[in-house]
């Protein structure tokens, strides 16, 4: 990746963390071969995981990891939006609420009582929401974690005043490109590959398991056909429903599809290839 810049001066970059595991920010530090070039091409003005130095805003590029889960975060994200000209939601927490959005399908108060002796001390919102549900966002990057080279491509595109090159194809296509034998066809394993946004390189099928949806919905996906095809293959009750109700559970397409899968799991249907379900 060449980080040549067409900008008159180095853009100021800020990296923020909300409710998350740190993994997407870490992906930035995991750019071992590119990190020093990147640090030379942009002005890293706010990035607490990496540096104590905090330069005042406004910033040209704001990169936000994490979802909004507390009243304080809901306020803080508004300040972040004001401080940043171009705001990027980084990773599936920021783009769809993340794994912690599983609370959105249950009683969060119940969870708080399960985990903490004195839940009344905690401050939290009922739902974990994406950044775009709270403030306007200029670009979303899916992934749990993100593919670090996607972020590098986005920053390079910003430096060069061009659109980032994001293939819209699903995981399924990445398997074909890699020459990975389809786990659904060959082994009858439920897999979200046909409906999930590519970007990971189809890692799960390459490891002999079905895709579990880290990269959110592909824009070209047919979810209801997927559910009808996969749910009859469930190896344990509601496998497909739980695949959908996982990392990207709060993304609208996943929500609807999980509901459909939950209904279907009560009533098995013949699968896509016409065989009777087990």
């Amino acid at each position, binding site marked *: 990746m060449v980080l040549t810049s067409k900008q008159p001066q180095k853009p100021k970059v800020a990296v923020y963390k909300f409710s998350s595991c740190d*993994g997407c920010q870490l992906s930035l530090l995991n750019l071992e071969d590119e990190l*020093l070039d990147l640090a030379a091409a942009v002005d890293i003005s706010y990035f607490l995981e990496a540096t104590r130095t905090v330069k005042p805003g406004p910033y040209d590029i704001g990169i936000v990891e994490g979802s909004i889960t507390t009243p304080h975060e809901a306020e803080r994200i508004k300040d972040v939006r004001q401080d940043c000209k171009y705001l990027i939601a980084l990773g599936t927490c920021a783009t769809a609420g993340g794994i912690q959005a599983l609370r959105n399908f249950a009683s969060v108060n119940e969870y*708080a009582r399960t985990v903490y002796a004195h839940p009344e001390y905690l401050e939290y919102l009922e739902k974990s929401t994406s950044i775009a549900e709270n403030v306007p966002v200029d670009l979303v990057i899916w992934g749990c974690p993100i593919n670090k080279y996607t972020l590098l491509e986005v920053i390079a595109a910003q430096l060069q005043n061009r659109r980032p090159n994001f293939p819209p194809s699903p995981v399924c296509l990445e398997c074909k490109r890699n020459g990975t034998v389809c786990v659904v066809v060959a082994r009858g394993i439920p897999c979200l590959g046909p409906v999930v946004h590519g970007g990971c390189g189809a890692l799960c099928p390459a490891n002999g398991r079905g895709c579990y949806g880290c990269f959110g919905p592909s824009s070209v996906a047919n979810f209801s056909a997927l559910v009808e095809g996969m749910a009859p293959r469930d190896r344990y009750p509601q496998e497909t429903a739980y695949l959908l109700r996982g990392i990207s559970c709060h993304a609208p397409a996943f929500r609807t599809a999980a509901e459909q899968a939950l209904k279907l799991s009560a009533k098995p249907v013949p699968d896509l290839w016409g065989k009777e379900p087990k």
Partner: protein
Amino acid sequence: MNTIEVPALARVEGEGGLYIGLQNGKVVEIRLDIYEPPRFFEGFLVGRYLQDVPDITARICGICPVAYQMSSVTALEKALDLEVSPQVYALRRLMYCAEYIESHALHIYLLQAPDLLGQPSALDLAAVAPQVVKDALRMKKIGNEILKAIGGRSVHPVNVCVGGFYRWPELAPLKKLLPELEWALEAAKGTVRWSVTLPYPQLDQDYDFVAIHHPDEYGVINGEVWSSKGSHLSVAEYETRYLEEHVQRSNALHGHTKDGGNYLVGPLSRLNLNHAQLLPEAQKALDENGITLPITNPYKSLVARAVEMVHFYAEAIALIKAYEPTVPAHLDLKLKAGEGAGASEAPRGLLYHRYRIDEQGRVQFAKIVPPTAQNLPRIEQDLFALAPQIVALPQEQATLTAEHLVRSYDPCISCATHFLKLKIENKE
């Protein structure tokens, strides 16, 4: 000077702040504010099928996902009375070696070294000592490359399951890493030599060191929970001595022993309790650099990490050379209701999990005790011990010294959101 305040701690995993209140030169209040929000993992694990667990718990921490996966699968395999093959166990150790390599290289060079070298970050350090940072990144990268070869990616790898691995990784990509690992092993020996020359602040404490101990290997996944105060417990007995309590006025779960003491988990505990199990290269690094044990200064956990790096590079080389899978990558699961506890040594300390599952393999109960939750009371006590030395220093230097202490623990605040807005008041 009335207060030392760091509203947002830098170069730690997760978000937290530090407040030390002083009156007439005496410390009246120490507060480590953890504003990392709660995410309720133990809540939403309930009802999930057991194979979902390692994928979900990995998301607790992007820096030590392997630790979460290993503690999860170990506990769940206990619940099913499964014993994985020695080959699966060896590959799990290799994954763990890789996580230690990337996490320790990150902490030593990118998170803690800037404190010791008077720089705000490793990026600033790179401007004055580019080769140091370039070598550090190269050392770190090899850990991520091993994880990629085994689990597809370094953050939240996808190959770990209850019963073993979804498939055996190919040998060629692992073998290709050997020359780079040999380089890194030598580089890590250099890190140990360098680590003993750094200007650590003085602070020696009487710790209850707690770590997993195994007589035949450097304790990481398998073994007993040992304490330097003489307690030796099986993992299943962990909760008989180590408790979490929601302390009044603190809004927090505190790790403490059943007699009310605090304890330390992490690299100092491991090295002090398990140095006899280090591989010869790491033993030699201890001897050649005149490192005497136990190390009782928390700032010097960097030295322990450096010695561990030598060990884990050497172990990774040996494991890759011996890698030749001949048995299935995972066992068939025979589901039954049961309960199991598992513990492993995350790079920042002991990580304990316990699950109860029903006959369909669904989680009924989950308990997770992350390392930083256990260390938090100990960090506060260290801050109290440190305070008299720093109150006379200029504000900026006092703040840095206190911050540096917290950072030297390599706290993972994302993991340890069991405590919020922790407040300590001087009881004098």
